[in-house]
């Protein structure tokens, strides 16, 4: 008994050793990344901000002291007080609660836009890069056409055409964002396609779909994710801008950009309506940018060395 267990132990140990040995470079990489992370306090701050942001969004219903939509016109435009640290807005709604609940909307925006735009981008990019030739030419020209518009302008046009709601703003931004990922995925696909092992896999008889699915896609994911973290700030700003122009989320939804837009006529006498959601946008976007910067720095071989 004892023997077998020790044999198993040693087998385990050797497995562990082998595992460690094989994964050694990867572990080093992780260690290195953690080291760089610690060395860049800004990235750390970004992580904390985004962590808080996500926590707030997650527990928003518990954190928000009041109903963000319930109006009380008799108390409208009350200045910040102990009961309402961010004051009340033009409908007597608690600004703090609106900002807190708004975080959920922002998370929703980021999440859905990321999923849609990455999905479109990956499909277009991988297909274009993998097949090359005419397919590539056509898909990339389509991408070029989308890139020929300044992003916000195209998103505005889509949002207005689909009629302005939060959902449509999300769709509109996704329709603009995917080009970023399409180009990345295409570059990866071209890289992978030219690898000798792909020829080998083909020779064995793997279908194009399988190769794209199991060999090209996994390679494309990581640069796409890196890019994504760096674009999240921009996504929020774009959504907020649409909201501000009245082409995004519609009241009473507490989307931050829409709150700023709604409150901007009150800027002079009732600064709190716009100041707090504005700061919320700024801080969150800052967090994403710091985080994105950190991730880029950590993964950038030039800065790594």
């Amino acid at each position, binding site marked *: 008994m004892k023997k077998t267990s020790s044999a198993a132990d040693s087998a385990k140990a050797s497995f562990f050793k082998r595992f460690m040995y094989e994964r050694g470079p990867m572990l080093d990489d992780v260690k290195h990344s953690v080291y760089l992370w610690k060395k860049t306090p*800004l990235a750390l701050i970004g992580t904390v901000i985004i962590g808080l942001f996500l926590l707030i969004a997650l527990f928003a219903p518990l954190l928000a002291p009041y109903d963000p939509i319930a109006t009380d016109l008799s108390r409208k435009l009350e200045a910040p007080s102990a009961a309402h640290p961010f004051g009340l807005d033009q409908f007597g709604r608690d600004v703090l609660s609106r900002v807190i609940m708004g975080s959920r909307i922002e998370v929703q925006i980021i999440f859905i836009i990321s999923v849609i735009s990455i999905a479109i981008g990956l499909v277009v990019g991988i297909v274009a890069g993998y097949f090359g030739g005419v397919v590539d030419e056509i898909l990339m*020209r*389509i991408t*070029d*056409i*989308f890139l*020929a*518009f*300044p*992003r*916000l*302008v*195209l998103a*505005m*046009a*889509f949002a*207005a*055409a*689909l*009629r302005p709601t939060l959902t449509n703003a999300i769709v509109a931004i996704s329709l603009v964002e995917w080009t970023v990922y399409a180009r990345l995925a295409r570059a990866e696909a071209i890289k992978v396609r030219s690898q000798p092992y792909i020829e080998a896999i083909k020779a064995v008889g793997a279908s194009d779909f399988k190769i794209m699915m199991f060999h090209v896609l996994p390679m494309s994911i990581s640069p796409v994710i890196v890019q994504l973290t760096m674009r999240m*700030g*921009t996504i929020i*700003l774009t959504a*907020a*801008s649409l909201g*501000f*122009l*009245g*082409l995004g989320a519609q009241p009473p939804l507490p989307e931050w*950009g829409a709150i*700023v*837009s709604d409150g*901007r006529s009150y*800027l*002079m006498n009732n600064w709190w309506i*716009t100041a707090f959601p*504005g700061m919320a*946008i*700024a*801080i969150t*976007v*800052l967090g994403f*940018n*710091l985080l994105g*910067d950190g991730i880029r720095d950590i993964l950038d071989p*030039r*800065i790594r*060395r």
Partner: protein
Amino acid sequence: MELGSFIIKRLSLMVLVIFGVLIIVFVVTRIIPADPVGAILGGNAPPETVDAMRHQLGLDKPIFAQLLDYLGGIFRGNLGNSLVSSRPVMTDIMEFLPATIELAISSIIFAVVLGIVLGLLSAVFRNRFIDHFSRVFSILGISLPGFWLGLILILIFYYRLGWLPSGGQYDMFLFPTRTTGFILLDAAIHGEWDVFFNGIKHLILPTFILGYSSTASIARIMRASMLDVLHQNYIRTARAKGLPRKVVILRHALKNALIPVITIIGLEFGGLLSGAVLTETIFSWPGLGRYIVNSLLTLDYPAISGGTIFIALIYSVVNLAVDILYAAVDPRMRS
């Protein structure tokens, strides 16, 4: 010669892309859910008038015929009549375009100059005060929502301090002579220096708000690119020649570091055009951005399509110019 063929290739590509742009814009304007006639006639008009208007606008034709009308119109330089102003969209655009171009140029100059200087100093004095300052400045630039910052700056610089105007292109009671439509250019041509300086004063806040995020991006790219270049072998070669640090940086590093910056200037210009939409709204700037926003809000589809096409066209031309510039700066691009 090689540059010439490059330009031709690039141009033909652009023509193709613009055609695609036209199609997209058409599709976008036709999926607008509301009958644009409602936008023209307002709430009180009876249904007969509405039907008459629909017919007048050709909206009762089949969609394919509408597409042909639209493309045919565009190739004849006719973007249709705005439903709101009833004027040819082209006339409207030509009226508002100069203001936008003026603002965009002033912002891009601001962004490029300040961005490059900050990025350069930041890289050269890495981890020193100027680097920290420039990085904080930059990260704020891409994080602060311009529409929000703009409102706050108006409150400070106009209302509290009274240093700068709250919006518009020039003060009232000035009646600038117009030749080109560009306020500053016209003022300079006609020697109306009061208008000129007044125009500059009005440009400061919008330029800052519009150019800030681009300044930030350019500074960041410039910093990264400069740091990268400073690690290159040829910089070592230059140092091995015994060139002073200043010369190494300005003669050898700068030009190389600028190459990636040039590529993003094109992209940043797109950002500026996007930003103009917001900035013009906040600063009462009589430009194309506001025209497009209003068209979108009133579903004035000829104006939407005309405005968007123009913006895309400007953007494409700028990107073309940037690509050519890029090719001109980087010899590796030419072959």
